[in-house]
């Protein structure tokens, strides 16, 4: 089957049960099975797994220490308090951790395209984008997720509503991270190997999400919400966790949905242009 035929039949792989009863259940089972196998692979080297995840937790804790020192000297930063910054780190690290743990290939798509490794996924009867995304698990990112849960356990609101709001905040952050990464990596379909550029753009998003939105003014704030969607993640501790700000929450959900749609569309549009390099590869 050619790439184009395969792409034209993308609708066949959409998540719908129309004319295909049980398809959604089979896909969910496929996703769960992939995650289980990824985790089993990570646990094969148990000591290495614990060290890698532990190092990532220490890395994040050092940033928490920095902010602790900062707020020890300056109690409030344009309305943000230590508690808000802790939750900002929980949401940002948690969202990134969910992306890299469960959709670990999101940041490697440009490399996969440029090196012709997509062939492996095209030859298998599964939705291509979903299959690519879930085929890798970053072991260190498990440390990010554990860190997020730890910070929430210490600083978060542990009521049922608080837990639900934190879960929603992490989900929004993860969706934005995943599909922003998909979009910038898809440039490789048109421009060639853009791995370096994609990493730079993603790092810019990630870096902006770990600083309070209140420090940015005028153009900075505009970029944060209109160009790089970091503001929709970094304002979550105020606009969702501290108190629900409905217009902001609707905006964040709409932006997440928009990124999912654009990312998916861009990937399958790009896939029409994909040409195999005839490289022999195996799934690892």
């Amino acid at each position: 089957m050619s790439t184009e035929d395969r792409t034209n039949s993308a609708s066949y792989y959409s998540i719908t049960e129309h004319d295909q009863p049980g398809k959604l259940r089979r896909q969910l089972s496929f996703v769960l099975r992939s995650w289980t196998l990824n985790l089993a692979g990570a646990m094969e080297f148990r000591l290495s797994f614990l060290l890698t995840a532990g190092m990532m937790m220490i890395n994040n804790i050092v940033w928490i220490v920095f902010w602790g020192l900062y707020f020890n000297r300056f109690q409030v930063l344009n309305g943000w308090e230590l508690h808000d910054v802790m939750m900002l780190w929980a949401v940002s690290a948690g969202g990134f951790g969910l992306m890299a743990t469960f959709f670990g290939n999101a940041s490697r798509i440009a490399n996969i395209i440029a090196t012709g490794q997509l062939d492996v996924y095209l030859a298998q009867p599964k939705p291509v984008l979903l299959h690519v995304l879930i085929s890798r698990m970053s072991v260190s990112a498990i440390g990010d997720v554990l860190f997020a849960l730890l910070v929430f356990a210490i600083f978060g609101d542990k009521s049922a509503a608080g837990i639900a709001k934190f879960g929603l905040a992490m989900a929004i952050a993860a969706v934005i991270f995943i599909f922003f990464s998909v979009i910038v990596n898809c440039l490789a379909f048109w421009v060639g190997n853009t791995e370096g550029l994609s990493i730079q753009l993603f790092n810019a998003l990630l870096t902006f999400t770990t600083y309070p939105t209140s420090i940015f003014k005028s153009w900075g704030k505009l970029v944060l919400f209109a160009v790089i969607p970091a503001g929709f993640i970094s304002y979550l501790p105020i606009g969702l966790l501290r108190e629900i700000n409905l217009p902001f929450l609707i905006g964040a959900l709409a932006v997440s949905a928009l990124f999912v749609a654009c990312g998916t569309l861009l990937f399958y549009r790009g896939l029409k242009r994909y040409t195999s390099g005839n490289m022999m590869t195996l799934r690892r």
Partner: protein
Amino acid sequence: MTTLGKMAKYAFIGKITLRNQLAYIIDFLIRSLFLLLILYIFLQLWQATFHGEGDASLIAGYSFNQIMWYLVITEAITLACPSLCTRIEEEVKNGDVGYRLVRPIHFVVFHYVEYMSEAAVRFGVNAVLGGTLGLLIIGPPELSAGFLWLPLAAAFGLTVNFMLNMTLALCAFWVEETRGIEFVYNKFLFTIGGMLMPLELFPDALQAVGRWLPLQAVLYIPAKTAVAFDASRLAGMLAVQVLWIAVIGLAVAWIYRRGVKKLNVNGG
């Protein structure tokens, strides 16, 4: 071989590394854009902080201009440092270390010359980029003799960083995987080493701890020398750097001698 001959040998290694780095200067320039991003964020953060303090002119003895130029220097040095652990870990894993050890070049000195040449090019590029951003947005720094001492203090700082990294990287002779330790070391450098803010902003107890650690010699001393120059303290600060170079240098020599006997070379 005479001492002069030995020095010429290492000078050539440095020259080759410099030429290698200069060949990819545009690529490195693009990758250095992250420096501009992080400086922009810190600019916003410290503007908000000074504003929050009632537009104070000084915080812990630093003006806004001094803090920003302090950060330009610490970030420029930090992003100039190559990852020594990655390099030596790879050499041990793929067996290249075997070839390196049988050459008539000292393993540690070879890496030092390579490290410093690479760091010099990167620091130069970062200084130009950061300096341009600083001049455009922050305004010129308060010029003092400190900026004349910066190259020397930065060279000493990079040497201390090399020594500390080498003690970690040589662990690869025993355990192979050292990047995790390097990762954590870097994070300590960022905080208690004074990369993110000057030590004077820390609580007293932590300041006292910081002053007994070699980490202050890497970033804090070069940046402080440049932006808050105090002629009466200069000799003391440079002496601290030299002392740490000597102490950690001895530790590196001891670890290297033990490690090289322990090393098992894979393949090659």
